């Protein structure tokens, strides 16, 4: 790990050193713009990080201490927790050059299974909780098998399973919400993600936010310090090259979709913590919001590059913009407008950075 840290500080130096390589190898990387491009290539999360800081500065000026207060900033963190957890799942998928349109549906399906089994069917809460997690895992596994073994495009597969899981939500829930009060009485464990921890200065963290951060650390570790993580990047980068290099790309894909499904189930638990209830109506926008967070966070839709940290920052950017614009009294339509603009800018920058190898 220490070696890796040392290595990455060398990254920029390495780029410049590239110019002095094997005498014959030409190098055209000159000028400030190329230098910025090279820097961003080495540190792809720099842009979202800068956008986040600039956003916070702007809204602090526009909305004052109502915005820049520990309580409000911790509130934004609470508000982006669902999107953040889903975004972690979606990042894994997008790193393999895939897309999962069904993450939101898997999340709600898992929360409905947990809530309904424990409150309506009377199953012990621990068992229904585990069954809820397994539901997510199974949904992801089905996606993975269809993508890796049946070799269907991820977009089509998950468009289909989105509908299927959506139908299951209605069938299982019978369109009925399990109320917060009923869950609190019978299965309070399901609301644990909503437990609150007061920090100093009015800031409040929920268990869900802490779990999101721990989950991000875990997935970061897997991506960067295990062979499986390296295989995820390689599979998304160039599947044929990965296969020839000896990676079992099919197993990698199935693994990634299954893990993503499991993380979606955790997101379902987070949803119950946040809204108290197990509702078939919740999370309607979560799908696209999660993809937005991933893209704004600098993960490439073409696969093979991106990071979990970027996704969390991306989710925070969306949360900060929505919250800041609302506090500054900006109409909801313009909030949507701003988020749309962010997506376009993020993808444009990604395309530009990718050209470094051209």
């Amino acid at each position: 790990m220490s070696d890796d840290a040392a290595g990455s500080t060398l990254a920029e130096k390495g780029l410049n050193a590239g110019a002095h390589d094997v005498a014959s190898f030409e190098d055209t990387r000159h000028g400030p713009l190329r230098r910025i491009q090279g820097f961003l290539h080495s540190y792809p999360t720099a842009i979202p990080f800068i956008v986040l800081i600039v956003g916070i500065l702007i809204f602090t000026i526009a909305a004052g201490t109502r915005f820049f207060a520990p309580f409000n900033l911790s509130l934004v963190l609470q508000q982006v927790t669902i999107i953040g957890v889903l975004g972690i799942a979606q990042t894994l998928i997008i790193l393999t050059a895939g897309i999962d349109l069904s993450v939101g549906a898997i999340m709600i399906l898992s929360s409905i299974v947990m809530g309904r089994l424990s409150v309506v069917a009377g199953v012990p809460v621990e068992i229904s909780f585990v069954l809820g997690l397994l539901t997510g895992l199974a949904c992801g596994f089905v996606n993975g098998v269809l993508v890796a073994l049946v070799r269907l495009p991820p977009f089509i597969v998950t468009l289909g399973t989105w509908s299927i899981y959506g139908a299951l939500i209605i069938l299982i829930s019978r369109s009925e919400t399990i109320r917060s009060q009923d869950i609190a009485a019978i299965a309070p464990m399901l609301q644990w993600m909503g437990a609150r921890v007061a920090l100093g200065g009015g800031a409040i963290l929920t268990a869900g936010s802490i779990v999101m951060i721990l989950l991000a650390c875990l997935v970061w570790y897997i991506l960067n310090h295990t062979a499986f993580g390296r295989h995820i990047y390689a599979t998304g980068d160039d599947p044929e090259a990965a296969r020839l290099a000896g990676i079992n790309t099919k197993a990698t894909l199935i693994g990634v979709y299954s893990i993503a499904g499991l993380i979606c189930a955790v997101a379902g638990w987070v949803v119950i913590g946040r809204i108290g209830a197990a509702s078939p109506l919740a999370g309607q926008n979560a799908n696209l919001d999660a993809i937005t967070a991933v893209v704004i966070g600098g993960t490439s839709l073409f696969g093979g590059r991106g990071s979990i940290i970027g996704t969390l920052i991306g989710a925070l950017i969306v949360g900060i913009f929505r919250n800041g614009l609302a506090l500054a009294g900006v109409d909801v339509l313009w909030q949507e407008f701003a988020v749309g603009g962010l997506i376009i800018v993020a993808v444009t920058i990604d395309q530009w950075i990718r050209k470094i190898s051209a």
Partner: protein
Amino acid sequence: MSMDTQPASLSATPIAGPNPIIEARGLVKRYGRVVALDHADFDLMPGEILAVIGDNGAGKSTLIKALCGAVIPDAGTIKIDGSPVHFASPMDARKAGIETVYQNLALSPALSIADNMFLGREMRKGGPFGRFLRLLDRGEMNRRARAKLSELGLMTIQNINQSVETLSGGQRQGVAVARAAAFGSKVVIMDEPTAALGVKESRRVLELILDVKRRGLPIVLISHNMPHVFEVADRIHIHRLGKRLAVINPKDFTMSDAVAIMTGAMKPPGMT
């Protein structure tokens, strides 16, 4: 692959001296009505650079794929060090010590040089971190990657953690060759290693090939570039119409002779 193990005595062209590292006999591969391999033979001797040339469609890439496990022949035998092998996938060939540098290099552009060199055979740390947390041994992999690159005179690539896409075409080829040389215990197969490179970079790669040979590994070199072939090859396997037409010594023939044999304009030696 055919299940009948033919005795070595069926060998059409007995070769003097040491036994071949790879010995293939009667390889057949059909794609529908197209016969890509028509009872092709192949021999690779220890320590040599064997060039494989042939016109487009002569079946040389199918031959190479059969040797590195990417294609399963319909009939014929392949022996490594005299024992028959049946490759079901490139993995099997790699386990048998045959490393291939594919024309597309099979590198992941966004990953670092060290990551690429160990892709698919990463090293884990010892102790509980490696066993339970599957922690990669970055330090050791970096050290070995660096060592291998220096051995091959590629240590001008200073930062082992820079991503492969920031490298030039020649440097990438260097990384792919270093990977093959690091893990290939028996043979390194190179498919058109100079095809995408400029003059200077091609020269570096040819030197690299000779370096690998000096280290005792035999090399199979597939190339269209006759000057390159004649510069480095010890023997030249000429493939035509799905089979081995001849094996020539580059010292005894000119480039135009080789091309003439390859295209059928000239009769191969020994078939007067």
